[in-house]
């Protein structure tokens, strides 16, 4: 029987990686991801996990090592954050178009300057287009479950893509939560050994990562794009199987009290927990407000999102990322493009909040809902609003 224990989310993720029987873990520590890889190195050193832990000299080396190990057919895990993830950037585009599966947990953190070790989504939004499948966890249990799910999806022979599970730095990574860690037997049942479509094997030599001349490059990128678009069905299937084995259900878009809603908040990750409290309070006050949580970010589940919006006419979209000089944050831009000129589509208002560890409190969600309602009547001058910024 699996048991529910009070455990730090980072440690629980490491245990999940152990349960998934990861074979190679190249990693470089960085706050707030540190506890994940520290605990994994302990697990390997103690003989609890039969894996190679590679203490690399940088994140660039970590991701390069991941590519090599996964190309040779190993089940690979790594983790990073913020500046470390940015240092990986050059390599991140490589395993995705090369269809080399691996799993990375990103403990989301702000980017310098000014130096901030605290949570927002700017680090991962820089890497939006690396072509990896990406999910966002709302709490510790989800972080564990999505990590196990990620191996199942990434290694599916029809998917064969790398996958990122985003967890909010500190807000999730350093918090002790009651978490049900699955049984080894169940994880083994859910996650069979990794059998890659192709691997680097001297007995049957192939070349991975050759030059793509102008006559080939576009087709290679198109094949990658179609692979990630087609992955959605396998992501959903893996969630369905997850529910059958572990009893917890996941969907690409979660809805919370959306019935007859006039305004829907749209968020990702751990702020959705506070947003639910805000929705409850607003509902108690007779306001018809609901919440949409984006769990699957890439491939973007457009069909599921439209269905979840239903007939609601106003969306208040929260971006935990401020792209200077852009028309709005990446999530806002995504949704505006998706609904552009579709008859009956909702009015979409973009809010930037929760940068660099700034708390987004219940009253801030109420403020966003109030503003969105006002903007629906009188169009604002700005294309997005920064919430909770001091003017003086």
């Amino acid at each position, binding site marked *: 029987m699996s048991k529910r224990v009070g455990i730090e989310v980072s440690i629980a993720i490491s245990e999940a990686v152990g349960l998934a029987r990861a074979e190679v873990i190249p990693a470089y520590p960085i706050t707030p991801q540190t506890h994940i890889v520290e605990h994994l190195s302990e697990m390997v050193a103690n003989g609890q996990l039969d894996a190679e832990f590679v203490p690399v000299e940088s994140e660039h080396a970590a991701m390069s090592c991941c590519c090599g190990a996964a190309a040779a057919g190993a089940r690979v895990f790594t983790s990073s954050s913020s500046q470390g993830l940015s240092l990986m950037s050059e390599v991140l585009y490589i395993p995705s178009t090369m269809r080399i599966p691996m799993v990375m947990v990103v403990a989301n953190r702000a980017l310098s300057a000014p130096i901030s070790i605290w949570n927002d989504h700017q680090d991962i939004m820089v890497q939006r287009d690396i072509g990896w499948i990406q999910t966002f966890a709302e709490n510790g249990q989800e972080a564990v479950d999505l990590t196990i799910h990620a191996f199942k999806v990434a290694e599916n022979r029809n998917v064969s893509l790398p996958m990122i599970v985003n967890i909010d730095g500190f807000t999730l990574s350093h918090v002790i939560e009651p978490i049900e860690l699955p049984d080894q037997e169940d994880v083994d049942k859910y996650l069979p050994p990794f059998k890659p479509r192709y691997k680097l094997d001297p007995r049957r030599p*192939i*070349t991975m990562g050759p030059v793509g001349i102008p006559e080939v490059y576009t087709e290679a990128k198109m094949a990658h794009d179609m692979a990630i678009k087609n992955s959605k069905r396998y992501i959903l299937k893996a969630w369905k199987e997850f529910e059958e084995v572990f009893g917890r259900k996941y969907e690409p878009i979660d809805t919370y009290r959306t019935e007859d809603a006039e305004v829907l908040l749209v968020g990702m990750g751990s702020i959705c927990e506070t947003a639910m409290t805000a929705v409850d309070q607003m509902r108690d006050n007779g306001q018809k407000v609901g919440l949409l949580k984006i769990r699957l970010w890439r491939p973007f589940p457009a069909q599921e999102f439209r269905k979840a919006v239903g007939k609601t006419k106003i969306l208040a979209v929260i971006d935990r990322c401020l792209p200077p000089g852009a028309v709005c944050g990446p999530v806002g831009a995504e949704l505006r493009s998706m609904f552009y000129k579709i008859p009956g589509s909702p009015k979409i208002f973009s809010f930037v909040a929760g940068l660099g560890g700034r708390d987004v409190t219940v009253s801030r969600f109420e403020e966003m809902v109030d503003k969105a309602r006002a903007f629906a009547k009188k169009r604002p001058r700005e294309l997005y609003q920064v919430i909770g910024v001091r003017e003086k």
Partner: protein
Amino acid sequence: MANSDAIVGWKTITFGCHILEPGNSANFRTGDWRSQRPVTDKEKCIKCGMCWIFCPDMTYKQDEEGYFEADMEYCKGCGICAHECPKDAITMVPEEG
């Protein structure tokens, strides 16, 4: 450089753009962007094979008389053969036209 057999659509391109057949660069005209070519003076050539040894793309082949000749499908005109030839028998001449 293109070989028409390799120019396929995105649905048939190899998985991950891997090369599944080792050494398939021989199927491509990899030397078609050359700006100069090696020309061997058979009067000076002693058939020592230094050009054949040093050529980084293995373009030199020995003919029936024992002379070494670069295959212009693959030669990129780097000039290493001319530099290494102990008898200065190889001259790099500009490609024309």
